[in-house]
Each structure stands twice: as C-alpha cells, then as structure tokens.
C-alpha cells in the first residue's frame, strides 16, 4: 500500500529531522532508497530542484516523491506526514511543556544528537562526491566527473578567497549545469 508507506516513511523523516535543512538529507536518502522511491541520481536532481525553489528541502522532497509515486494524493499525504511531527511537537511544547526544551536531560540527549547529525551529513557528503566520480560507469566518464567536481570545488574555494563570502548554492547549481552541458553533450 503505497499511501501507507509514504506516510510512514515521511513521518520518520519528520520526526528525526534535527539540524536544519541539510540535516534532513541523509535521513531522506535513507528512506527513499530503502523503499526504492528514488535513485542516487534522482535524489541529487531533486535536492538541486529543492534548493532552487522556495520552501524547506524536506517538504519539497516529500511533495516530489509523493507525487511521483502516487500522484496528487500521494503528494498531499507525504507532505502532510513530513510536517506533522514538527507541528505536533511545537504545539505540544507551546501549550503544555513550556519548560521541556530547557530540561537538562533533554538538552544532554540533544547534545549527542546534534553532532551525530553533523557527522552523518559529513559522511553523506563525502560519499556522494566520491561515488559520483568512482561509479560513473567507465574510466573516461569517471575522469570527466572528477574534473567537473574539482572545477566546482575550485570555484567555491576561489570565490570565498576573493569575495570573502560563500558562493550561493544556486550559483553553484547553475555552474554545475553549465559545466554539465559543456562536458556531457
């Protein structure tokens, strides 16, 4: 039953999405790959689309996966499921447990969760970058991918050195697209 799977999968994402926008990506990756909803490539595409459109990445991905798996109602249910946990938690805290967030035991547990999420994001980033280059199909393809990756990394680094601020994600995506057209077509 795809509707039920979508609800369960995205409830899980919604319950454990600590650590901001990119904190949710490894979790979403877990869920969509386990159910076979997206390939590694498809996930990258959707992260790029989410980054270039308004709204939090996790909500965007829920809408997209829901829609591609089960049409309009799939999109509605997946989006609802991903938002529900944070909605319920905030409501519960504001209405009933005003002091719960300052509870020292809770903060102690959270003090473990946050760095853990950072570690998971780091591992996911490293894995994605290397997998793109190492499993590109053939050796020339792999070298191409590595070259584009290096060029993009150099652009990020160079921009930061020259302008003393970060290259915006959207600019990096545009640059990636341009290099993709140059190298692959």
């Amino acid at each position, binding site marked *: 039953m795809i509707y039920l799977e979508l609800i369960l999968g995205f409830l899980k994402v919604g319950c454990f999405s600590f650590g901001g926008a990119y904190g949710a990506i490894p979790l979403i990756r877990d869920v969509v790959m386990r159910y076979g909803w997206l390939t590694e490539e498809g996930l990258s595409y959707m992260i790029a689309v989410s980054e270039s459109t308004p709204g939090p990445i996790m909500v965007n991905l829920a809408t997209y996966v829901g829609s591609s798996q089960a049409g309009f109602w799939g999109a509605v249910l997946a989006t609802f499921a991903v938002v529900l946990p944070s909605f319920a938690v905030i409501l519960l805290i504001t209405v009933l447990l005003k002091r719960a967030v300052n509870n020292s035991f809770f903060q102690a*547990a959270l003090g473990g969760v946050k760095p853990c999420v950072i570690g998971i994001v780091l591992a996911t980033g490293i894995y994605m970058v290397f997998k793109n280059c190492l499993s590109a199909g053939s050796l020339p393809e792999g070298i191409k991918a590595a070259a584009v990756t290096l060029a993009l990394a150099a652009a990020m680094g160079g921009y930061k050195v020259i302008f003393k601020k970060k290259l915006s994600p959207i600019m990096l995506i545009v640059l990636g697209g341009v290099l993709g057209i140059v190298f692959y077509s």
Partner: protein
Amino acid sequence: MMDITVIAESTPGPIAINCATYTGYKQGGIGGAISATAGIVTPSFIVIYLISMFLDNFLEIHLIASCFKGISLAVGLLVLDAAFTMISKMKKKKLPRGIMAVSAAVMLLCNIFGWRVSSVTLMIAAAVFSLAIFLLKGKKGAGTK
C-alpha cells in the same frame, strides 16, 4: 516569552515551519497554528507538484539531462559544504567532536559496505551515549548548554 529559535533548534523540522506553527498558535490558537503551517507549506507544495509533473519529460531532452548530470556533481559538494559549515558552528569541545567523528566514520563505512544501519539508529545511540555521559558526570557534564 520563550525564545522561539531555541525551541526550533531543539525540535525536529525546518525552522520556518516551526516558527509558523508557533506564531500561528500564539495569534489564533489551534486554528491559527493549522492555518499558518498550511500557509507556509502550500506555495512550495504547488511549485514542486508542478515541477514533478514535468521533470521526467524534461530529463529526456539530451541537453537538459547533461545539464543535470553536472548539477548532481554540484549537489554532492553542496552537502559536503553544508557539513563543513555545521562543523564550524559546532561547540568546540571534546564530546561533540568525538560523537561527530564517530558518527561520520560509522555512516561512511555503512555507505561503502552497504550495511543497513539507519541514521535514526545512530542518532538514538548518540542521544543515549550523551545522556549517559551527562548522568555520570553530573550537572557540570559536557552535554549541558
């Protein structure tokens, strides 16, 4: 009045949605919370839903497919860069750094060898570990703010 950003950082979900729910509740009770949350989700829902109907067709065009190939390489770097940003904002103490390093190592090994350890399991383990350290060390332990 509590600081909403503290709440948002201590609870799951994107900050924008947390703030909408909180403000909605403060202004109009449960109904306000529901409408504010629905209000902040709806625009991105519509945009992504429309995109989802056309993306697969777009990807059949060779030029766009190669464009997206380059983009997917950029996304890997974006995730990596997000991780570095998070690390630089992290508390510079031994315990969080240790947890971060161990989590990264475990997750990387899982990815490489295809072990099915979910990130949720890892997060719960980290929470339990940090709580245990806190209880052992007493209130001045490393887990507190």
